């Protein structure tokens, strides 16, 4: 199986005619992802290396049966692009774009989560999703991944590659690797993705990669304890990070957490989750548990 993307993925890229969109879209296609369409308003009827371009997502889905969208458009129009995909019935939206204003995402994510039809939004500001051997949507380097039983979910980009690489080096493959992104209001958080891994037949163990700030790791820890049978191994970056500047005091009141790496580690361990001290140790623990 794998989660979010796989052999059934029919990918459209919003912004396929752009420089980055075409580079990564075609790279994903080369990996084996079924890239069926691109959307660029006004460029409908043209193509990018044989991939047809449409003016609207609705036209693209109608014509090609696209069910997954990768958003590669500039920040000022990215929320609009996500909403367009959702409105057109796309099931999985993976937004790579970095720098979308939080207000735009607050509105967008609220709309997506409240709708009668839920679409999974991954990102924005994320490296994407890869189900090794099946499909790659985003910028995760496919060559460091290999097929196998470990699911991975991470707030970070390159750190994800590092950990996947370590797993692969040890001969441990991955079912799906998901970068949820580091924005204040992500489309999906750890829990949303863990829920999918828990239901996935292929996934026998999940690696959770967190970092300082917010309380997503603490909430995930509580959720795992309550709901998950699949074992989870965690890694948290940022023990040595400089304390973030913050102004005002409201934030800490809200989460009730200081957001430090130590606090996260403690919460995870209290939920029975082993926490590795460096990326290399992740693969060691995973190897031990599998």
């Amino acid at each position, binding site marked *: 199986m794998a989660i979010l993307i796989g052999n059934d993925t029919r990918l459209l890229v919003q912004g396929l005619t752009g420089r980055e969109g075409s580079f990564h879209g075609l790279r994903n296609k080369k990996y084996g992802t079924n890239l069926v369409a691109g959307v660029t308003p006004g460029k409908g009827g043209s193509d990018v290396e044989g991939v047809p371009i449409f003016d609207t997502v609705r036209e693209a889905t109608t014509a090609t049966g696209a069910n997954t969208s990768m958003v590669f458009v500039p920040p000022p129009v990215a929320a609009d692009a996500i909403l367009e995909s959702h409105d057109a019935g796309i099931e999985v939206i993976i937004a790579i774009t970095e720098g979308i204003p939080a207000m735009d995402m607050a509105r967008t994510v609220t709309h997506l989560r409240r709708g009668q039809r839920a679409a999974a939004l991954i990102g924005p500001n994320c490296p994407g999703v890869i189900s090794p051997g099946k499909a790659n949507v985003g910028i995760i380097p496919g060559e460091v991944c290999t097929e196998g039983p470990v699911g991975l979910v991470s707030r970070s980009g390159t750190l994800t590659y590092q950990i996947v690489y370590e797993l692969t080096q040890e001969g441990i493959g991955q079912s799906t690797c998901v970068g949820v992104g580091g924005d204040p209001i992500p489309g999906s958080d750890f829990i949303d993705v863990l829920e999918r891994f828990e239901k996935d037949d292929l996934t026998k163990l999940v690696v959770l990669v967190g970092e300082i700030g917010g309380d997503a790791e603490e909430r995930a820890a509580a959720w795992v304890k309550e709901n998950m049978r699949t074992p989870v191994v965690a890694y948290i*970056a940022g023990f040595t990070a400089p304390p973030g500047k913050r102004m005002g005091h409201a934030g800490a009141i809200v989460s009730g957490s200081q957001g430090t790496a130590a606090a996260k580690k403690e919460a995870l361990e209290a939920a029975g989750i082993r926490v590795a001290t460096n990326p290399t140790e992740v693969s060691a623990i995973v190897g031990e548990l599998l």
Partner: protein
Amino acid sequence: MDLFEYQGKELLRKYGVPVPEGRVASTPEEAVAAARKLGGRVVVKAQVLIGGRGKAGGIKVARSPEEAGEVTDQILGMDVRGHTVKRVLVERAGDITDEYYCSFLVDRSERQFLGIMSAEGGVDIEEVAANDPEKITRVHIDPLLGISQFHARELVFGADIDRDARKEAIAILPKLYDAFVSLDASLVEVNPLVLTGEGRVMALDAKVSVDDSAGYRHPIFDELKTVHEVPEQERLAKEKGLTFIKLDGDVGIIGNGAGLVMSTLDVVKAAGGDPANFLDVGGGAGADVLSSALEVITSNSEVNSVLINIFGGITRGDLVAEGIIDALGRLEIKVPIVVRLDGTNAEQGRKMLADAPHEMLVTAATMLEGAEKAVELAGKGGE
């Protein structure tokens, strides 16, 4: 971007939130003029992007323009927890009957907005939250629905705000919310919101943080930014597109992606070293960026070794190598540079480095090995 009190207040005023009349001054003379214009008693407040200025003596009352000049002279240049005071806000002083707390912010967990109110204002709200959590009222606001009158009522009645202040407070909250949303703020905090002797409610302080990502639709952000001073090294880094934070150790760090850089700091620390900085070259950095990063790092004389830890995704290993080689040729580098390179085009990059040997260049096969070598070399350099 965090805004200075006077900047935040100017913005809130535009959204109809009552704030005391005031002027900003960066010299005692300007403060005297400001106090004269305002008339009567004034309050002179240090403008710093950090809390605790009151305890540090950064807020003083002056009964005359001359006194305003004198206290301004005392406050300017003052250090408040590492921040030097460059400006003061001179405000008309008023009678205060009561102080409240209120704020709007993004609640990441709930992916909603949150309004917070308390009748315990003018004090450290975190302490109130810890000791008397029932004295703090929280109301979630759906970002699509926006604020309704009932949200304002729930906050005001819930926090048990004095009867005399209720009506105005209920009227002010939607304006604060409007400012929060319209300014693309991540936080609007008013502490204290006060009830004056004349029965008016106004914002006596304002902490506003805005979302830099939304700068493209707020030309004013650039203007507000001009008074923000950042350390020279950080400013230089930012110009080159790097995220740089100075730390106190001697092992310079360069990496791509915040998570990987943080992880690198951790392993260096675990190997017994002390990172000299956090430096993220970002995604897709080219040769020039890498070269600049090395320049920024090595300009710090405390650095005894550098660890470059790159895992290429968008970033290409060959360009990283090119940047390193360029920097080694261009700059007079006197500390060992440990390079660990993996991911996209890493092999090619490693070959390029092997083909361009330099006495200060050391390679490492893994991140842990890189950290160990860098720490060891820094130790030697330090001796």
